[in-house]
């Protein structure tokens, strides 16, 4: 944003327009201001993002524990140990599950709401309500779900109370074997509102006459979605997909709180990559080298997913 304001305009600059054949004085002034404005950004960005990222990569090849010891470079040892570690393997698979199945679930839910909300009266209020889970800290959400999914005969949580009230048996939602899927459902529930808001903002840009025309032609809601909504919001869907990927790859708090006691790391079969990094950093024995190696894998993973997603969703923009 800064550069677009202070850099000389690439087009639209007309030599001589008010400059009598030489660049206008204000343009020269702008040029002078370019670096003073950009340099602090670059310095801060470099200092707090680029350098730490590079340091993370470098330290991932060391056995540094991060507690006053000197890093010793051990080549790919950290990576070799990490890839054979059950905790990492589970974390990797679970993270992929959250990205893919979570993404599919979230977007299906978001699209369904988009189809319904467009024609609905008071949809702005519904949108706001659906957004609510996003203003609650994930840790608090996790604790809330712990109460909702409580399993205790004669004192069930909300979910089991509802099940029992319709004559069904109570379910052990938080049992170790199934908790990953319960967390997945909870994440979809908590995330959908955010993506509904983004998609609905894009849907609001679509001229209503397109839908009116489709209605006159007898199009079903699905046909309207398939032939109007989706093509005309495709660029936004792509961005939303990238946002989801970045958010999903760092899923941490909700799993930590729901799958475990909340104080200690949950069982390794529920881990995500974020939990693996946390465990190696603060889990009891500092092992920053291993944590850095996992962080590098996360960077690579998010890069691969984002590039793949951008390629997959690349379409010519439709002007309307």
């Amino acid at each position, binding site marked *: 944003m800064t550069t677009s304001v202070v850099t000389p305009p690439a087009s639209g600059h007309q030599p001589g327009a008010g400059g009598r054949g030489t660049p206008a004085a204000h343009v020269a002034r702008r040029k002078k201001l370019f670096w003073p404005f950009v340099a602090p950004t670059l310095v801060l960005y470099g200092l707090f993002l680029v350098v730490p990222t590079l340091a993370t990569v470098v330290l991932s090849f060391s056995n540094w524990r*991060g507690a006053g010891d000197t890093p010793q470079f051990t080549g790919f040892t950290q990576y070799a140990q990490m890839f054979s570690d059950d905790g990492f393997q589970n974390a990797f698979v679970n993270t992929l599950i959250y990205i893919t199945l979570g993404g599919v679930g979230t977007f299906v839910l978001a699209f369904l709401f988009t189809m319904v909300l467009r024609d609905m009266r008071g949809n702005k209020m519904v949108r706001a309500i659906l957004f609510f889970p996003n203003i609650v800290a994930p840790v608090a959400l996790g604790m809330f779900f712990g109460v909702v999914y409580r399993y205790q005969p004669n004192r069930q949580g909300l979910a089991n109370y509802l099940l029992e009230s319709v004559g069904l048996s109570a379910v*052990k939602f938080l049992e170790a074997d199934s908790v990953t899927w319960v967390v997945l459902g909870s994440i979809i529930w908590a995330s959908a509102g955010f993506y509904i808001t983004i998609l609905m903002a894009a849907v609001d840009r679509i001229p209503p006459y397109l839908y009116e025309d489709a209605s006159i032609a007898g199009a079903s809601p699905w046909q309207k979605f398939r032939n109007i909504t989706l093509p005309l919001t495709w660029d936004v869907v792509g961005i939303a997909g990238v946002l989801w990927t970045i958010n999903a790859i760092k899923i941490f708090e909700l799993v930590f709180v729901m799958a475990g*006691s909340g*104080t*200690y790391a949950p*069982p390794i079969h529920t881990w995500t990559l974020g939990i693996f990094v946390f465990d190696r950093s603060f889990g*009891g*024995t*500092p092992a920053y080298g291993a944590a850095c190696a996992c962080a590098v894998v996360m960077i690579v993973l998010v890069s691969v997913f984002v590039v793949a997603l951008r390629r997959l969703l690349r379409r010519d923009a439709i002007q309307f």
Partner: protein
Amino acid sequence: MRSIYGGRRGTSALVLTAAVSLVLAGCGSGSDNAGGGSGNAPAGDDGKLVGEQEFMNAPCPEPAVKPTQKEFTYWSMWTKDEPQGRVLQKAFKCFEEKAGVKVNVQWFGRKFLTQNVAPALNTDTVPDLIDQDISQVKAAVVDVGGTQAVDDVLAMKIGEGDKTVKDVIPSFLYDIPQSKDKDGKLFSVPYEVLSNGWWYDKNRQKDFVEPKTTDELFAALDKAKAAGGAIAQDGDIDFYNAYFLTQIAEKYVGAGGIQKAVDDRTGNLWRSEPGFLKAAQYVERLAKGKYFIDGWDASKFPQVQQRWADGEAAFLFVGSWGPSETREYLGKQGGGATIDYGSFQFPKPEDATHDTIEFLPIGWSVTKKAKNAEAAKAFIAYFTNKDLARGIPAVADNLHPRAELPVPDDLKQLNTALTDSKKEKVIFMDSIDSLYEGTYVKNVFYPLNNDLLKGKITAQQFIDQIGPKTAEFWTNRG
């Protein structure tokens, strides 16, 4: 949750405020004051448990060691308002008053070793004094060379005549490999000790006879199950689930026996030592007998522990913090419900050879880069004085290494068992959870133990699987 080991959650740590202090004040006991020494304490010499106000208002003892340094920095595992925090504030006030040493405190809470101390070791801004249980200190700070020897503290006088630290702290609490660094130097001087056991409510089980054999234990469990519920167990905490197997295995293989099996790179020791299978068979019996109350494996801590406090189960197996946590819960619930705590140890199986009890010391450590080590060490000795040390049982409702100090009624049985010289002392879980960055228990032991305790695998399957998994662990580790 284990109050210190691994870090009790903050909420449960904020226990025992005024209400509890009043309860404790009323828990005066006529227990014999076996120690005492020649300290100049005006209160507590009669062996009675003092209340918090009495403790706080008592005159400060004179320090025997007055350092030349006039301040030191302490980073704490406690928070300022929890009982241990309040006890320490009194001690710091006294130390400043009597020795002229100001203590600069940062109250961090349980996770401070990895989140604060370890990162600080990369700098020159380090605390002089830290504390935590020895397993955590060793894993997070000692193994990277972050502490200095505190052996010299043992010889320091504590302000009770000629008594030294060594005279009043039992050696089994510090003269152990787990309290030594790689050079064999002591890195921790204990000031609180944890233990564990079966807890039950004497009010609810008036005719209960504490079991002396495993058969009697299972008979009691059968009876309790028939009456509505036998064991309450918060199944979402892996190391709580590990108590059962490690407790019984230690009785077969003794202190250090489980560590040996973990360290055996072939994994064969798990099979060749028959005690492990026998221990696993007891756990299988617990699982197959369905003694755990419904929902124990799908709960959030501390729901199941609270169900025990509500009377849904007869027994709860946790550490010495069990009474304080459940009492806090009942207090918040209102209604005036109380528990008359009784405790007993896992009976030793007839064919087992080690009469064990688990413990875990919490102690003081001095960092290697400490600028005021002299003052910090002098304070360690000062806090061992009985007039300050008694705050741990009296105010914080926990056990102090000085077993002669009066303890709350809740902990008397546990204190008796822990100080029984005939019992073999073993660190919690034989300290395997602090080995190899905790990766062995997380990757190998906990998953299989959980399956065993939940009845998904048999004892034999446990043994068949843990050996190869151990060997695989070592292969991957290189």
